[in-house]
């Protein structure tokens, strides 16, 4: 076991982690621990853009953006946080441009902007051009630009280091414990400040836009150490994933004029969202798609998908604005989007919930107290700027605004505080976890349990949910957790043991799936991405509050999820009925 010391340790090297690292490296001795090489992170898969009220192409302002964000999140958004994000969005985009990001440009050479779901002029009047973009490669460009600037600032990366534990001593952050994939060695990183920026949890679902690596590692570590997870029942299903594969096709496609059609060729979104139509928020579009499918208007022999139609758009426009997604259709489906509509279905995309933080990125240990020295930013965190449903492009904004804030705050904290003493045997939990898996002679396989988890989640915890399906999911997940205790792996070696890694990741997914379904079962209302057919309306009296889920360990060692609730921060906007 090796022990390292850094002022600031950042866990994860996607957009939020690297944006934090650029700030903290200039202010404190920083290490970035990442289970992937930095440019492999899933920020790179984001396509359509990053919204900011630059008003480069039409009138816009950050207050309209704030309203759209609050409304998009079905009033579960903390409005102070949304206001900060939408105000700072403008500088966040300009900062990226100054770092070198190659945005698409207007005729005048300014950053171009396009329409995106849920983003409107003057509180819902009509779609507005707010999304700053680089073709349909905005996430790729952000990831590359941030990595380039990490190289420029000499950020120190520990590549393929998998963080498996958080060390807290006397209520204060002491460091993290990581497993080095190349050697199997365990490393303790003592740190004054730790920033979690390790991404989402989408791999608990079968049809998902998420990478294989998105297994909720940071959330699971925090949960195991007694910290709460906020609003985990809110998971976004992006309307346009490639049918059965789940690969993301950007909302920017509809921003460029693409249309959703059912088997009759009807532009069905006109019935569900008369003003915003195909650019209604994602939860609204995904429900509409499944309503069409349930009503027998789905496409194909099994009627289980609809079409994203781009065939009326000029090929030059597709080549210039949507080159990657049209190539996905050609590569993976073998169809030509110039002339064929693309079969799509909603795909599990984004966790609105996560580790609760305040607007400085400080992690909360309950409704009011923080954990000194601990920060989180990006999809792993819940500020909450996304509430019950995130607007398109606001994730790229979130990682830049709150990644930057967390990096600055963590370095400032490290500057003012000393190291907290490491607990006794700091690597013990990770050693036990790793050795337990390596030595297990159990009969269960990782792949089988993961498949069953994903199938249950897709069947029971998708766009439409009921008490019955959620109860089924609770039982399924708990049974799978039991079986997981009897899991074994084939690779017993210490060198690049990805067999072991996948087992640990599955354990994390199971823990988080349990939190998600227990939280969802208790939320007897419909709000944003959480739709209960047995409780189809929003209940602001009982449920305009954030879920806070804690893992409780009983004396016999068994665990359960305890739920608490936290008030929503309201400033300007009173909840209204949500129409698009």
């Amino acid at each position, binding site marked *: 076991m090796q022990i390292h010391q850094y002022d600031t340790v950042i866990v994860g090297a996607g957009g939020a982690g690297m944006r934090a690292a650029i700030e903290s490296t200039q202010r404190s001795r920083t290490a970035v621990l990442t289970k992937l*090489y930095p440019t492999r992170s899933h920020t790179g898969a984001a396509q359509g853009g990053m919204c900011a009220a630059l008003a480069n192409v039409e009138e816009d302002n950050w207050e309209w953006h704030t309203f759209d964000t609050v409304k998009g999140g079905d009033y579960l958004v903390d409005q102070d946080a949304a206001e900060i994000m939408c105000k700072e969005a403008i500088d966040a985009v300009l900062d990226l441009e100054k770092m*070198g990001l190659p945005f698409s*440009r207007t005729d005048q050479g*300014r950053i171009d902007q396009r329409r995106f779901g849920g983003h409107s002029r003057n509180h819902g009047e009509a779609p507005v051009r707010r999304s700053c973009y680089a073709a349909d490669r905005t996430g790729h460009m952000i990831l590359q630009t941030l990595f380039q600037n990490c190289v420029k600032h000499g950020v120190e990366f520990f590549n393929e280091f998998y963080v498996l534990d958080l060390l807290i001593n006397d209520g204060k952050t002491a460091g993290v414990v990581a497993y080095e994939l190349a050697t199997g060695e365990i490393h303790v990183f003592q740190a004054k400040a730790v920033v979690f920026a390790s991404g989402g949890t989408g791999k608990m679902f079968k049809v998902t836009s998420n990478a294989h690596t998105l297994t909720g590692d940071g959330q699971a570590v925090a949960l195991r150490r007694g910290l709460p997870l906020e609003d985990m029942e809110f998971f976004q299903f992006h309307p346009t994933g490639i049918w059965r594969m789940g690969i993301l096709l950007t909302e920017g496609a509809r921003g460029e004029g693409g249309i959703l059609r059912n088997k009759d*060729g009807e532009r069905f979104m006109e019935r569900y969202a008369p003003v915003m139509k195909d650019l209604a928020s994602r939860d609204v579009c995904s429900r509409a798609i499944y309503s069409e499918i349930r009503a027998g208007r789905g496409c194909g022999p099994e009627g289980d998908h609809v079409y994203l139609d781009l065939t009326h758009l000029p090929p030059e426009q597709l080549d210039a604005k949507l080159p990657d997604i049209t190539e996905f259709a050609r590569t*993976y489906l073998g169809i030509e989007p110039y002339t*064929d509509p693309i079969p799509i279905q909603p795909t599990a995309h984004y966790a609105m919930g996560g580790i609760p933080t305040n607007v400085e990125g400080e992690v909360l240990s309950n409704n009011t107290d923080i954990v000194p020295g601990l920060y989180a930013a990006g999809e792993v965190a819940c500020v909450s700027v996304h509430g019950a449903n995130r607007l398109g492009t606001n994730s790229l904004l979130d990682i830049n605004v709150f990644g930057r804030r967390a990096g600055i705050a963590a370095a400032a904290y490290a500057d003012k505080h000393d190291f907290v003493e490491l607990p006794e045997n700091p690597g013990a939990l990770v050693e036990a976890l790793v050795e337990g898996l390596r030595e297990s002679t159990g009969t269960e396989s990782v792949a089988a349990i993961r498949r069953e988890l994903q199938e249950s989640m897709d069947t029971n915890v998708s766009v439409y949910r009921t008490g019955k399906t959620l109860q089924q999911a609770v039982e399924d997940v708990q049974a799978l957790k039991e079986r997981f205790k009897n899991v074994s792996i084939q690779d017993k070696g210490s*060198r690049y043991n990805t067999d072991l890694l996948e087992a640990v990741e599955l354990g994390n997914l199971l823990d988080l799936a349990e939190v998600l379904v227990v939280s969802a079962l208790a939320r007897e209302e419909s709000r944003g991405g959480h739709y209960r057919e047995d409780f189809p309306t929003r209940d602001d009296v009982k449920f305009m509050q954030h879920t806070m889920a804690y893992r409780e360990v009983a004396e016999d060692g068994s665990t359960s999820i305890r739920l608490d609730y936290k008030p929503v921060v309201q400033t300007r906007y009173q909840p209204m009925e949500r129409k698009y």
Partner: protein
Amino acid sequence: MSTPTVETHSAALDAVEAGSTKLINVTFRIRRFNPEEHPDPVWVDYQLEMDPKERILDALNKIKWEQDGTLTYRRSCAHGICGSDAMRINGRNRLACKTLVKDVDPAKPITIEAIKGLAVLKDLIVDMDPFFQAYKDVMPFLITSGNEPTRERLQSQADRERFDDTTKCILCAACTSSCPVFWNDGQYFGPAAIVNAHRFIFDSRDEGAEQRLEVLNDREGVWRCRTTFNCSEACPRGIEVTKAIQEVKRALVTRRF
């Protein structure tokens, strides 16, 4: 606007929507290497039932999940964006997640091995550090002087288009590890580093071209390129890599960019 356009289906769309395809038997011949167990690599065959529309990465996952958990490779996004899974498939550098079974002749064994020119650490995993070091050496970031503008720097659409091709790079190393000069000369920067230098040299906002060209003019720099076009063929993003290298060479001679 709402004219239905979906009544006439192409044969390709019908084929996609028909869904179930006949599964075929495919042999995957994978070059395994684990120095913990044996000092030499060995070819191992795996038999699988595959839908021809599945990805090579799906096959590797099936092997790992159903047959042999020790098979080791890198992967993440699974749709050609993250650059983790470049490998030699039937002797050609490709991304496993962007190559379908039907794209390579599945009637014969499909060979899979690690990319060349970088040390193999285990199975399909190579040491990427020399690759990223070459990238860092070309100063792959915007270099400017003077005060920053309060708003964005202006850039015409034509100026933006000038370097568009090389912004697509995902640092997968498919190009660099397909280059015979790189295989034989451990010090050559390799195509990917030059592509990333190109991305900045031809960016109208950048003022660091002279510094980068100095680095690239070194004896191990661009002049080692023998224009074999392997790199352009290997690039999963369709970047015209050889053309970019030629443009950098020309810029070195003319100092015009």
